[in-house]
C-alpha cells in the first residue's frame, strides 16, 4: 500500500495541478497494469509507466473518447482482462455524440472506464440521463486521490471481469481548493506512510 501511495504521489507531482482530471489520471496510472492503457491525445500510455516517463503535457490535449473506444475494442479482441481508461473533459462530454459513444461501449460491454470531468453544476438533463442509463456511473471527488481510488478500483475491476464500461464523474472543486498532491501528502505523513523529507 505504501509503495502504491508513493507512486500515486509521484504521478500527482508530475502532472500539472491546474488540469481538472490530473488527480484521476494519476490514480489511474498508478492502478493500471502493464497491459492496460490510458488514452492520451495521440497515443495509448501503458500502465505501470514510470512517473519520470510521463510527460507533464499529457493532459494538454484531451484524447478523443471515440479513439479510446477503438482501443478498447481492439484490446477486447486481443486479450482478456485488459482495460482502457479514457479521460474526458467537461466540454467534450457535452457534445452530442458522447452519449452515443457511451451507449455503444455499454452495448459492446467494452473494458473501458471513462474519467469525466464535471463541476458541481453539471446539468443532468433528461436526455443525457436516458442515454447514460445503460452505463454504470460513479461520482467521486476529482480533487481527492484517496476518494478516487475506490471509484477507479471498482471501474477497473468491472472492466477486467467483462462487466462493461464505467463512467466516473470526477467532480472538480473550486480553484482555490487544496491541490490533490498536497492533500495526499498530508495523508501520507499523517498516516505514517512516509516522512516529510521523503516527499520532496
Amino acid at each position, binding site marked *: 500500500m505504501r509503495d502504491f501511495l508513493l507512486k500515486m504521489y509521484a504521478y500527482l507531482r508530475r502532472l500539472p495541478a491546474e488540469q481538472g482530471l490530473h488527480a484521476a489520471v494519476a490514480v489511474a496510472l498508478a492502478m493500471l497494469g502493464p497491459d492496460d492503457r490510458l488514452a492520451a491525445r*495521440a497515443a495509448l500510455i501503458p500502465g505501470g509507466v514510470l512517473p519520470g516517463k510521463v510527460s507533464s503535457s499529457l493532459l494538454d490535449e484531451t484524447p*478523443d473518447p*471515440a*479513439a479510446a473506444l*477503438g*482501443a478498447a*475494442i*481492439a484490446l*477486447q479482441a486481443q486479450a482478456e482482462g485488459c482495460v482502457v481508461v479514457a479521460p474526458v473533459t467537461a466540454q467534450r462530454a457535452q457534445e452530442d455524440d458522447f452519449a452515443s459513444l457511451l451507449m455503444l461501449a455499454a452495448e459492446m460491454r467494452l473494458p473501458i472506464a471513462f474519467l469525466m470531468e464535471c463541476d458541481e453544476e453539471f446539468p443532468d438533463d433528461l436526455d443525457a440521463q436516458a442515454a447514460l442509463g445503460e452505463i454504470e456511473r460513479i461520482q467521486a471527488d476529482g480533487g481527492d486521490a484517496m476518494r478516487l481510488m475506490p471509484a477507479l478500483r471498482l471501474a477497473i475491476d468491472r472492466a477486467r471481469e467483462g462487466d462493461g464500461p464505467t463512467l466516473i464523474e470526477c467532480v472538480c472543486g473550486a480553484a482555490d481548493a487544496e491541490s490533490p498532491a498536497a492533500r495526499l501528502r498530508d495523508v501520507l505523513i499523517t498516516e505514517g506512510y512516509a516522512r516529510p523529507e521523503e516527499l520532496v
Partner: protein
Amino acid sequence: MSRMTYLEAIEYVLAAEMEARLELIVLRPGARPALEESERDVALPRMSRNSFSVALGASMAGMHSVLDLRQESACAEMLMEAVCALPADASPEMTILTGAEEADRLAELPGVMVLQPKTPRQAAGFARAALRSSRLTLLIADQALAGEEDEIPEDGDFMMLPLDGTEETPDAEEETKPAEETAAEVCDEPAEEMPADFYEEPAEEASAETEDDAGDEGAPEPGAAEENTEEIEENADEPDEAAADAAEEPAEIPSEACQEEQAPHEAEEPEETPCGTDEEQAAETEKPTTHRFCSSRMTPVELARLHALAGLLGMPAETLAGRCTEHAMKNTASFGFVFEPEAEPGECACLAPGHENALIWLGNDRLTVSYDADSLSHAQAGAMLRAVKRVLETPELLIYDKECEGE
C-alpha cells in the same frame, strides 16, 4: 485459381488475411459483420466522424484496423478532416475501404496511399497490398465493377500495386513473392513516383544493400534533419560504374549512366530512408568495390544562405560553392566539384571519369563525396566531407579569406 467477382475478390482476401493475421480487425459502421463468429469483425452504428477515430484507436492499440465505409455514401469530407487532424508524426496502420462515389476527392487525401482497382484481379492484389501495408491506405471499391469476374489466384501471397495507376502486373505465377519482400519493396512508398529503372539492380547487389537498409530509420523530412548527422551510405551500383570506367569488368549498369554526371542519377534505395548506417557499420561492410561515397544532409536553410551570399557577392552559387570546397580542400589534390541544385533529393554522386580521387557533389539536399576507395580511406573521405560542409555552412568566412578578397 478461382473465379470471383470484383467484390468477392476483396472479401475473399479480407477473410484470408483475417484468418492468417490476428492483428487485423475490421470495423463496419452501418453494416453487418461478414465474419459473424469473429471478434475481430465488428459491426458499428453509423458514427460519421467517430468511425475514423474508433479505427485510429484500434490502430493505436497495435492492430491493423480496416475501416469499411462502403455503406457511407459521403465520407470524403469526414476523411479529409480526420486525416488532416492527425498529428504530423502519426502513421496509423489502417486500411480504409470506401466506394467510388467520391473517388476524385478521396484521391486528394494527403499522406494516404490510394488504390483503386479496375479488375477483380487487381482488387484482390490491391486489397492484400493494402492490408499488409504499414501505412494509412485507402482502397476504393468501385460498385460499378461489382459484376465483373476474373480468375483470382488462391495464393496467400498474391499481391499487386499499380506502377502507373493502370498497369497490371504480370501473371501471378511470375509475380508472387514472399510477402515481406513485396511489402518492403512496394508497399511502403508510392511506386508511381519511382523511375522505371529504380529496381533494376543485380540481385547480389540488392541483397548486399540490405545491411544498409537494416539500420535505416523512417525517412525524416529534409527540413527536419538539422542535426547535420553524417550519413554514410554504400553505393553498390557505383562499383559497377567505376569498374566500367576502368574497363576491368563488365558493368551491369550501362556506362552511359556514369558519363551522364550532370543528369539525375539513379535513386538509391536508401534515398527514402536517409538515416543510413554509421561509419563503423559501413566500414565493416565488405564489398568488392573501389568506389564509395559518403554524404551529409544540407538543410534548406543552409542552402538558401549559400544562394543568398552568392547573390550578395555577385557570383553564381556554384562558383561560391566551388570556392568553399577549394578553400576547405586547399591541400588535397585531384578532386572535382559538381553543383546540382536541381537534383532530386537523395540522389548520389558518381565518380566521373577524370577525377582520380574524389568528387564533391552538392545537390538539392545533401553534400556527397564520391571517392576512389583505392586512393582515399573512408576516414579521409569523411574528413573531407566535414571540412567542406563546415565552410559551406559559414560561407561568410570566405569574405575574409585573403584568397577571395583579391577577386
